């Protein structure tokens, strides 16, 4: 075993493959972080839509969730890769296509987490807020969502970890993420064991870091349980 291959290529693997800094586009975090942020924001609307009274809102929201949960992510990435050029008339860079696919796909999962979180807040909370004259939007914003968010943390973290690792699927359209970067180095150096062990450690550290951080937030918020 010779980890010199990792040390010699650490700049490419970390800066290019993992962080996404450098000349050509790529990067696991550069894709995962905005995908989590925008996917979650879209997911909040999907999740609330699933609970809406009007069927014109909840039916499309439900359809959205059921559809994207029922198809593989790789397939969604492929679609976007082949369909966007047809619709828009020009091809978009790998990064935009991958980000769009992740946001839209993950929003279905985030939406379900948001829905479950909102439903986990006891009905009496909304009733108390309504009884003091708060509108539905105010009740949601000041009373329900803050409590729902706290209950969502464990599932949210799991989903973020899954998303982070799934970014490696973007390599099928040529996006250079950490896995793809390792593959590129390996094609030249033929040191699969060292390289793939190294990236495994990076993925694991990220995931473990996220779950530790989540536990920290949960504990901080749990000071005043219901």
């Amino acid at each position, binding site marked *: 075993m010779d980890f010199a291959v990792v040390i010699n290529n650490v700049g490419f693997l970390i800066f290019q493959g993992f962080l996404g800094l450098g000349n050509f586009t790529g990067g696991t975090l550069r894709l995962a972080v905005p995908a989590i942020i925008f996917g979650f924001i879209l997911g909040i609307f999907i999740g609330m839509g699933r609970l809406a009274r009007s069927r014109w809102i909840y039916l499309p929201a439900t359809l959205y969730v059921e559809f994207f949960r029922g198809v593989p992510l790789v397939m969604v990435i492929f679609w976007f890769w082949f369909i966007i050029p047809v619709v828009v008339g020009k091809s978009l860079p790998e990064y935009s296509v991958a980000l769009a696919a992740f946001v839209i796909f993950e929003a279905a999962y985030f939406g379900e987490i948001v829905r479950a979180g909102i439903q986990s807040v006891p009905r009496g909370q909304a009733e108390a807020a*309504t*009884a*003091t004259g708060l*509108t539905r939007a105010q009740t949601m914003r000041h009373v329900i969502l803050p409590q729902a968010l706290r209950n969502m943390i464990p599932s949210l973290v799991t989903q973020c970890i899954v998303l982070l690792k799934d970014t490696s699927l973007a390599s099928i359209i040529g996006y250079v993420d950490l896995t793809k970067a390792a593959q590129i180095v390996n094609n030249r150096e033929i040191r699969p064991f060292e390289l793939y062990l190294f990236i495994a450690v990076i993925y694991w550290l990220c995931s473990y870091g996220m779950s530790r951080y989540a536990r920290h937030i949960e504990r901080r918020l749990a000071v005043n349980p219901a």
Partner: protein
Amino acid sequence: MIEFRDVDKWFGSLHVLKRINLKVSGGEVVVVCGPSGSGKSTLIRCVNRLESIQSGEIIVDGQSLLDPKFDPSKLRTDVGMVFQSFNLYPHMTVLQNITLAPTKVKGLAAGEAEKVAKELLDRVGIPDKAGVYPANLSGGQQQRVAIARALAMKPKIMLFDEPTSALDPEMINEVLEVMTDLAHDGMTMVVVTHEMGFARRVAHRVVFMDEGQIIEEGKPETFFGAPQSPRAQQFLGKILSH
């Protein structure tokens, strides 16, 4: 102040309120009692439109709840409600629980709302708990905060839905005392409760319900002294025997 005219309500196929006619005047304290499932809670939840009715009419403070121009949010600022399970917001301090609606609904400045909140906490006997989270309060204290939260909107009517049913026995009195004070200050109150001592001492009128109907109503001394209907006699016999 509150008037029910031939009100009917169903939950699906379950007929929960049957032909309810009831009038509550300003300053009056009405206790609603009866066996569980008799529709007492549903009755008062109709007053602030937490429940809607299928037929009949409810008039609150001169306004019909069926009026197309009717604004539920405006109604709810005039009608305060206290729940069996307190329903305080666990993620907010006592002070924030009380100031939320006045600042968001009435647009009161934060400082002004806090001043009102502190006066109310003083009134319900827990002035030192403003910065505390609900989880760190006893049940009786939580319910008193809930009363203060409802009063912060300066309502004309207060509805109480079994306010002491979830409390340990030694905490019931502290809540009843606050309610008694409120009644003596002239608040219009409709109280669903099993506290017959409170009904006897404070209520102007007792309404007895069973199976969605008002079976009997009258002054507390008449109702407790000589209930007319067999159903009320049976009910009182059961709850007053120990």
